[in-house]
């Protein structure tokens, strides 16, 4: 299994929970709203036209726009609530339309018979029209369900976790594996939920005539189990989270998982209870910490510098760190709990032996050789500002530039197919293949200093700050690289990498 695939699968449980929660809640609400509306419309022609028009109009608003709109209407609130609101709005058309159509298709003589024996409109509806319209209504629900599962991926854009996390980050970083994992997972969920509804429908239709008693019981048990699981799942998801002392957040890659684990372990060691919320989007976790939903997470100076402060200049590692500290304190009331010591940034790396042979240790040493070298980059490196910056600063360009899937890139440099590659400084494979990270004496690459961003509430707790502060400058590039290697390359659990890093603490 490729490392990339493993990395993605690691995220699956979290995204699965998010996606299922979104879908189940949105569909429950969608059905609860749409069927009564459909019934209402079927009862009165004066309601039907306008109602279907409104529902149709909602449907034409592009999904991205409706998300933005809902967020705006909810006063900037992000997360589950706007995502579910948008999904509910989007699920309505097929259900309402099919409910109306189904109810209208019930033949007049059956309705007359029902009236004739003295059923009220309500009873006719519940006992005759809805049961007879059920196949059509359920067809609408099934369409809406599949649709909702698909659209729920967009919830990622408003900060609700879903399989969209795979797809969007995958599309952005051209990580086809992530896109595929996300798409397959969503498709599988759609098919399974669809099968559950299909099962319910089958049971309803064969309620009276149990053609095959054994089969009926088998399907019923399967459906009941599925329903109980789903119900339990919704309840579990909606349960007020158990009150813990501190929430440790994290973005969605190995290093973040390891550091979150380390921080949590240290806090637990000091007697605090913790909970981890990982795999969030960069902006989301930042916002969450600013609003005290998360107490601490691993951030990088360069990320804040460019994403939040919109700066593009590079006044040096220390200045940037200082300005970042200043900025997060001023604008979002966040504290830099400790600067861990390592940086996670793009860099150039070579085989150690090759570099020694050529006498290369820093990027400036490349100048005489670059034109004859073959360089490998990941799918986006050569079109990123980092590369342009490097190229212009050192005035180098490589003779040949190839792009690779990350995994292939490392083996390419290791086997000598390329001379030099783009690497992340803390990537475990740098350690695994014993590559040399070239120095950047001119500081062309913006610094990505790892530090623990702490929420304003947590910052007021001295015990917490002592634990967090104890990590100051304890994790070197080499140590972080090794820890990443343990998880990514050697396939060991995160906890082992955490234990390894703990050896650097006193």
């Amino acid at each position, binding site marked *: 299994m490729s490392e990339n695939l493993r990395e993605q699968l690691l995220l699956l449980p979290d995204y699965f929970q998010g996606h299922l929660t979104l879908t189940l809640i949105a569909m429950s609400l969608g059905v609860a709203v749409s069927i009564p509306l459909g019934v209402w419309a079927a009862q009165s022609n004066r309601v039907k036209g306008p109602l279907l028009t409104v529902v149709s109009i909602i449907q034409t608003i592009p999904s991205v726009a409706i998300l933005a709109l809902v967020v705006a209407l909810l006063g900037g609130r992000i997360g589950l609530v706007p995502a579910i609101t948008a999904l509910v709005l989007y699920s309505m058309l097929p259900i309402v339309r099919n409910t109306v159509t189904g109810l209208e298709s019930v033949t007049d003589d*059956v309705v007359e018979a029902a009236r004739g*024996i*003295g059923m*009220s409109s309500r009873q006719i509806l519940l006992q005759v029209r809805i049961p007879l319209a059920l196949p059509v209504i359920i067809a609408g629900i099934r369409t809406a369900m599949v649709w909702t599962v698909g659209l729920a991926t967009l919830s990622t854009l408003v900060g609700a976790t879903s399989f969209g996390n795979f797809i969007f980050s995958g599309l952005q970083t051209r990580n086809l594996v992530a896109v595929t994992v996300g798409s397959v997972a969503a498709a599988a969920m759609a098919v399974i939920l669809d099968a559950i509804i299909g099962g319910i429908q089958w049971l309803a239709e064969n309620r009276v005539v149990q053609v095959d008693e054994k089969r009926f019981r088998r399907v019923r048990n399967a459906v009941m189990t599925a329903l109980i699981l789903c119900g339990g799942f919704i309840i579990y998801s909606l349960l007020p989270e158990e009150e813990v002392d501190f929430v440790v957040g994290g973005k969605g890659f190995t290093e973040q998982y390891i550091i979150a684990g380390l921080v949590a372990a240290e806090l637990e060691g000091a007697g605090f209870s913790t909970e981890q919320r990982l795999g969030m989007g960069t902006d989301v976790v930042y916002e969450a910490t600013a609003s005290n939903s998360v107490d601490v997470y691993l951030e990088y100076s360069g990320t804040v510098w460019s994403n939040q402060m919109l700066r593009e200049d590079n006044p040096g590692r220390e200045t940037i760190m200082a300005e970042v500290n200043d900025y997060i304190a001023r604008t979002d009331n966040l504290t830099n709990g400790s600067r861990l010591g390592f940086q996670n940034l793009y860099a150039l790396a070579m085989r150690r032996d090759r570099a020694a042979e050529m006498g290369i240790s820093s990027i400036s040493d490349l100048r005489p050789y670059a034109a004859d070298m073959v360089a490998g980059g990941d799918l986006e490196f050569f079109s990123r500002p980092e590369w342009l910056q490097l190229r212009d600063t050192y005035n180098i360009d490589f003779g040949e530039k190839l792009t690779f899937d990350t995994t292939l890139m490392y083996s390419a440099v290791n086997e000598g197919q390329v001379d030099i590659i783009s690497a992340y400084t803390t990537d475990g494979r740098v350690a695994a293949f014993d590559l040399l990270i070239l120095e950047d004496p001119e500081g062309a690459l913006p610094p990505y200093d790892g530090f623990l961003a702490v929420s304003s509430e947590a910052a007021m707790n001295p015990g917490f700050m002592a634990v967090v502060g104890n990590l100051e400058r304890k994790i070197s590039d080499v140590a972080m690289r090794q820890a990443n290697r343990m998880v990514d390359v050697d396939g060991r659990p995160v906890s082992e990498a955490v234990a390894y890093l703990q050896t650097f603490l006193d």
Partner: protein
Amino acid sequence: MIELQHVRKSYDDGTSWAVADTSFTVEEGELLGLIGESGCGKTTTLKMINRLEEPSSGLISIAGKNVMERNPQELRRNIGYVFQGIGLFPHYSVAENVAAVPRLLQWDETRIRQRCQETLDMVGLPLEEYGERLPSQMSGGQQQRVGVARALAAQPDVILMDEPFGALDPVTRAELQEEFKRIQATLNLTVIMVTHDMTEALLMADRIAVMKGGEVLQIGTPYELLNEPAHDYVQEIVEMPRQRADRLEKLLHRSAS
């Protein structure tokens, strides 16, 4: 007591009259046979009595109360109705169809089950064997009997029956006629029964109304109708059984000789 006063009904805003100026009274405990040409307005008349159709004009009352002033659901629950087109619920089993009105009246389940058993037994379709079937799995005559059972299930005082035995073989039909007549007499039920079988009407009905083209031509006891037909059509229709028996006799004699 059911009373119709100058009741009229048009399906096309007065261009033609499905029922034109009909008045008659059915006394409590009486069984009125309603007979007449196909399309003469019999079904429409029945439907107006339990408010499945609204009369275009005129007054209908049951036990002295104008039906238009009664809650239609409550009214219908207290009137058994056997539909001409059978009118079973296709998604309900036989037992559920029969239990429909008692359920609406919120009888308790044991009483409902017992009553289903009784009525289905009465129409010759034991609950155990037929209760779980869907209407689509029954023969035409069996479906019709379920319709009769459903109408009787809730023990109503008034019953409207639209060709209730039309799809039954002569033997089953005779049995059911007798059984029904017995119940009707015992419980003093007020019944209007549409039928196309003059014999059935003559044997079962206390009085018979003969309709044609939306109007009641004559209403009277079988004896009155036979002996003082007020109209050619009435004469034609009441003499039909005898006439046919005669023709039959002749035919059989001829084929025998």
